[in-house]
């Protein structure tokens, strides 16, 4: 690829977010315009700090980080359960010297996407790894910005697969179901990597051992993050290891041929106490509404692992970016 694709990473780092970002940092195919952390896996101050630290770890302090929404639109905040107390497992990174931008994430999204919508720059792909609060609020404040989005590629939802945070619901959807509803209704081309996809790519202990060997100067950190990610729950996942949720978004951007998807109309439950955040896919036109999301159904797991081994190997030389 000669021209890199402009992207914004909207995320809540988070261990798997961090792996997704570290992969994206060394991919010349991606031009990362901004990172917009949101309240999600951790409270906002933590996801912002983690984003700054991961930028510095990856040698990409040049990427602006804009702090996002401090809480979901309507529901009370919930946080992730598998990211440790800091959001980066047991990994301790130096205090960041990089600072957060003065403008908020929502303002930054409106500015970038607004320019694209007005034809002042090329359209932007939104890589969404967390609850969708930032993008939903930006779309509601300034609906015109939808025209500046080339595609939304998101990690979220559980379709034929059961939920992870509750029996019915995947964490990002559950953490802000109202935001998800707004984004799904935005009329923008959209691909989602739900649990149906991410549970196909288990990061096994053997893989972790390989990343520990091959990730150059960040080997120790990558291995720590990945080792912490092991759910050690064979009954649930069929093996050791942890599902590689957010990194699949970066992988889809770089190698879409690893993925198969099917178009569906996706609805999000916003009221039920039992099923809050459930995503329901209408694959067969039962609702009478047109498909709005390409739901990823099948992943070449080995291809994704090999892709990440290749990406992480680019950290071989100090400061590689």
């Amino acid at each position, binding site marked *: 690829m000669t021209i890199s694709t402009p992207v914004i990473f909207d995320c809540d780092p988070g261990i798997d977010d961090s792996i997704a970002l570290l992969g994206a940092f060394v991919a010349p195919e991606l031009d990362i315009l901004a990172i917009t952390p949101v309240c999600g896996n951790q409270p906002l101050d933590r996801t912002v700090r983690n984003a700054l630290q991961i930028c510095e770890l990856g040698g990409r302090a040049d990427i602006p980080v804009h702090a996002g*929404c*401090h*809480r979901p*639109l*309507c529901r009370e905040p919930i946080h992730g359960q598998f990211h440790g107390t800091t959001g980066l497992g047991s990994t301790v990174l130096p205090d960041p010297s990089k600072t957060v931008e003065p403008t*908020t994430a*929502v*303002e930054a999204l*409106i500015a970038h996407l607004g320019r694209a919508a007005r034809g002042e720059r090329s359209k932007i792909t939104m890589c969404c790894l967390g609850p969708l*609060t930032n993008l939903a*609020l930006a779309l*509601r*404040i*300034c*609906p015109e910005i939808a025209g500046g989005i080339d595609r939304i590629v998101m990690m979220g939802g559980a379709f034929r697969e059961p939920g992870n945070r509750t029996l019915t619901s995947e964490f990002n959807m559950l953490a802000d179901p*109202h935001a998800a*509803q*707004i984004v799904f209704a935005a009329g923008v081309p959209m691909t989602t990597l739900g649990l149906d996809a991410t549970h196909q790519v288990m990061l096994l202990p053997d893989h972790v051992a390989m990343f520990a060997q091959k990730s150059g100067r960040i080997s120790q950190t990558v291995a720590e993050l990945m080792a912490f990610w092991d759910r050690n729950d064979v009954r649930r996942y069929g093996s050791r290891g942890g599902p590689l949720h957010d990194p699949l978004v970066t992988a889809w951007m770089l190698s879409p041929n690893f993925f198969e998807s099917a178009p569906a109309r996706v609805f999000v439950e*916003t*009221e039920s106490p039992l099923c809050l955040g459930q995503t329901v896919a209408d694959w067969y036109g039962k609702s009478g509404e047109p498909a709005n999301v390409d739901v990823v159904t099948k992943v070449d797991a080995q291809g994704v692992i090999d892709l990440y081994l290749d990406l992480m190997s680019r950290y071989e030389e100090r400061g590689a970016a």
Partner: protein
Amino acid sequence: MTVTRIIIDTDPGVDDAAAIWLALASPEIELLGVTTVAGNVPLEATYANACRIVGLSGRADVPVMAGARGPLLRDQVFGKYAAIGAFPKALVPDSGMTSSDENAVAFIARTARGAAREGRPVTICAIGPLTNVAMALRLHPEVAQGIERIVVMGGAFRALGHRTPWAEFNVYADPHAAQIVLGSGVPITMFPLDVTLQALFTATHIEELREQGGAPGCALARLLTEFDRSDPEKYGRPGGPLHDPMTIAWLVAPELFSGRRAAVGVQVGGSTSGHTYADFNDSQARTTVMTDVNEPGYIALVVDRIAALGAAPERTAQEETKK
């Protein structure tokens, strides 16, 4: 005299127009900006109407901003007079005023954050659906810190709703936004239908505005004549209510009103979406629900002040009221 710095978030709307003119006619109030939201009529019409309301009073220095095109989540509903859209120009002349390009939500957030940093919080009079205010509160935690109080026209407790049997229009039109605002921790003063329906403006008051008023007073008289708000069968006597100006009147003359602390909730979704309920026995409650108004005092304040606005064109509105 302490001057209260306010933003009016509004969906004009006839009674919204009266609220904006009352604010412009009151030296106790510094109007920092008028932010518009879809509600009574679509956004383009609320924005155009707000520009004409402010323009007619000769206060082109007060910025008018357009905000949310629709509610956060529910399907859009408009007010009873939605078909009218923008005010007919024969009723409210167009001064040709155009205003700020800034987004209404961005303006509220920017103003409140600035106020928080200066330690001079602003008051928001929210007299339409609460979409703009809710989104501003979600943008940044500093926004809530910069708001001293939100004075809301909305809700119905003992009174029946007017849009549906169970809900008042502003809450019904965006119940999620109302829930966000009520849960924000910012002190709230609420003017529900229970109190706004206690003061009815009659033909006599409209005549007074027409005879004594400047351009805004005469325009209000024309609006109240064209869109008759009276309903003797419903209200049991002649005259029609002006809901929204109560929020401004309370800031100017709180002695005209009484209210009680209450914990207020909103039903979001379901068959009674938009219903508001109040627990008057909650000792922790931070919301004040207004319950009673001195009717003649309120009406006199609204009529006299708006009539005086622009009545002597060489004077500014503020000098006029000090006279």
